[in-house]
């Protein structure tokens, strides 16, 4: 159901961005870029109070009139951002969580591949497949 899915490294440069191609991709890139600020804010806020109990799923970062942005960060500070279309019947939180879970799993697979250097753009077909699966559902 996602319209755009992106993954960022710890240093906040993008490892992977993909959007539904029919729409203006630049808009999504911009949205995702701005959402990084929100992610950083959430990470830093939560981190001080609870320490290790920081939740990986950040939830709704911010909604706009057209779409909603959800965030997720791993323990190694790799961030995933999913942009979903607001016009969709609102996806339940669990569904978004499961999407992030799949992304995270697929990402660790990519990491496990010894031929992948961390920090390289992700070119794994399996990862692409998973992302496509999540995006195709939008139709």
């Amino acid at each position, binding site marked *: 159901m996602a319209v755009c899915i992106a993954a960022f490294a710890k240093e906040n440069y993008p490892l992977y961005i993909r959007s539904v191609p029919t729409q203006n991709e630049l808009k999504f890139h911009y949205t995702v870029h701005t959402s990084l600020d929100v992610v950083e804010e959430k990470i830093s806020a939560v*981190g*001080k109070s609870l*320490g*290790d*109990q920081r939740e*990986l799923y950040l939830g709704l970062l911010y909604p706009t009139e057209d779409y909603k942005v959800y965030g997720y960060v*791993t*323990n*190694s*500070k790799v961030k995933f951002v999913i942009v979903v279309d607001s016009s969709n019947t609102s996806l339940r939180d669990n569904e978004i969580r499961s999407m992030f*879970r*799949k992304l*995270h*799993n697929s990402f*660790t*697979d990519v*990491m*496990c*591949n*010894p*031929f*992948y250097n961390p920090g390289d753009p992700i*070119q*794994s*077909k*399996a990862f692409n497949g998973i992302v496509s699966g999540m995006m195709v559902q939008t139709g």
Partner: protein
Amino acid sequence: MDQESAAASGGSLIALSEHEQRYYSGLHALCQAADAPGKLSSGKVAELFKASQLPPESLHKVTEVCGAKHLGYFGTPQFYIALKLLAAAQSGLPIRPESVTANLPLPRFAGLKTEPEMRYAAAAPPGADALGALCGSAPGSVSWTPADRSAFRHPETNADKKELWSPPRSPCSSPPRSPLTHRSYPYTKQRNGVDPQITYESMHSPQPMAQLEQHSSPSHYATNPTPEHPAVLQASSAERLSQQGTADYSDDDPWRITAEQLEYYTNQFKSLQPDLGALILGAVVKNFFTKSKLPIPELSHIWELSDVDRDGALTFTEFCIAFHLIVARKNGYPLPESLPPTLQLGFVQHEEDIPDTPESSEPLIVFEDAEPRPCPMERSLAERLQPSSSTSTSKQELEEKFLKEDLGVKNSSSSQDKQTLQQGAFPERPELPHDCDPQMKTKTRPRSYSSTSIEDAMKKAEEPPTPPPRPQKSHSRASSLDLNKLLQQGASGVKSGWLLPPPALPPRPSASQVPHFLSASEKASQNKVQQPNFADFSHFREEEESGVKPEDQAPGSRFGPSTEDLNSSKQDVSGASHSQVPQKPIRRKYLPESQNLEIGPPPAMPFPPPAKPSQKLLSRQKREIQMAIRKNRETNAVLTRLNSELQQQLKVVHQERVTLESQLELLRPLASM
């Protein structure tokens, strides 16, 4: 007709064009039987006919018409006629003796097509289309050049072929040579029926591109070219050379691993990791496979395909798959998007297939059953896989967590999976739960390195501190219980009636206390009724002594004093108040501060003076009520004690948490760097 065609052995009566002449003689040479020159090996002819992709009944008809059936073997004329009839059938003409004379295009054999077309510059290569799916245009174009060369060498190759075919299906003598020779060989032989002549020619050509070319000789024809192979394959990765497989006659699937290849892979695996049951780490694999000079994205893709359990390391099975994919890629096969099923099962089945080579058993030609035979085997293997895969997936499900698990957990699970795989498998059938691969992938796999390791570590670090306090409890309780049980032995059955329903929290203490109390009280009451106080004194002193003993046994335990306190409280209650006064100060020494409270209630408990016999009933009732009150108070005391202890533990845990958090805060700036 037969006689005519027989007379036309040289092609005189049957008008064979020059193309046909050459083509047929080439094919004829291919099918030469070792023992009977002039007779063609029916097995090879059968394979050739199968490659023509005609339905079995038409093939039978061809056999019949050409006269081989009549003769019982394929002689040269029969063979030529059969070829003609195949051409007729392929162009849609009925299979009849008359059609032999028609002007027909060359019969097409799947894979054999390319050869005549290349050679004779015929129309666009349909063969290339068939093979084009397998390889890109580059190798296809490359294949022309060897073909051109082949045209020149054709007369020579015929002779070569004959000697090549002499040991028709001997499992390769090649292995010693193989490391130098073939790279392209292996998979080629497994490809869908390419003309063996192509194979020959490509083999003779020293071209480097030969490696990439699809020389897929049909598996049937494949075998023997090997010995003739000059080092077509260069050295680029000498270590990659897979052994010359004997032809996998039963199936020309390129993804099947033959026995020689398996053996080669095993040797390579051993060179990296002597223990066949162990894993090769990803870094080691990376170095090794990088030598193959495939581009990194392709190697990355191969890794994704072959590391089925996603643990960052390769088992022997996975290693074989990866190696096989690399060799196939080197030979020009595009990498599949997902693991072909035969690849997983292939190098298992091959060992079955060799004894089961389908053809050549029957006198004439067997068309049908070569293909279906591998399928039941696949199915049986698949069935066998299901239980193992189900167990392995269930294991993974059990260990499934959202966030990745520790290395230890994952390794144990994956090693369990591999052991189940290896046990049934390694000698013959490595079992791969590939059918469950999508399931495995969708389920969260135990991860090699846990991104939540911090959280897990924290949680696990917090767990160990908690157990130590408990044994003290149990130990002390146990001691008190034992004591109680000792004392209870003399108690009458009435005590059960006095047992109040224990409060929710510590049933044990109340139960233990209550019977103890009861027993003591019973004894006390009995003593009171029967004897004066000094009998109680003696009784109580015994209790105190026995109470002191557990205290000595568990020195320093918080609960030791508590049990003693309880004992003392009971004694206080049940015995004469006066008699207990001297005893109390002694006991009080053991009590920790927090338990000073409990001392209060017991002494506060009013102790009813022994009732006069005349007031027995009333006193008894009073006593009963008072005993009940005492019990409640004691349970209250116990509960308060428990509460204080738990509070202390909570403080300790809080302190630990604070220290851990502070440590984490210290580490955080480092981590964020």
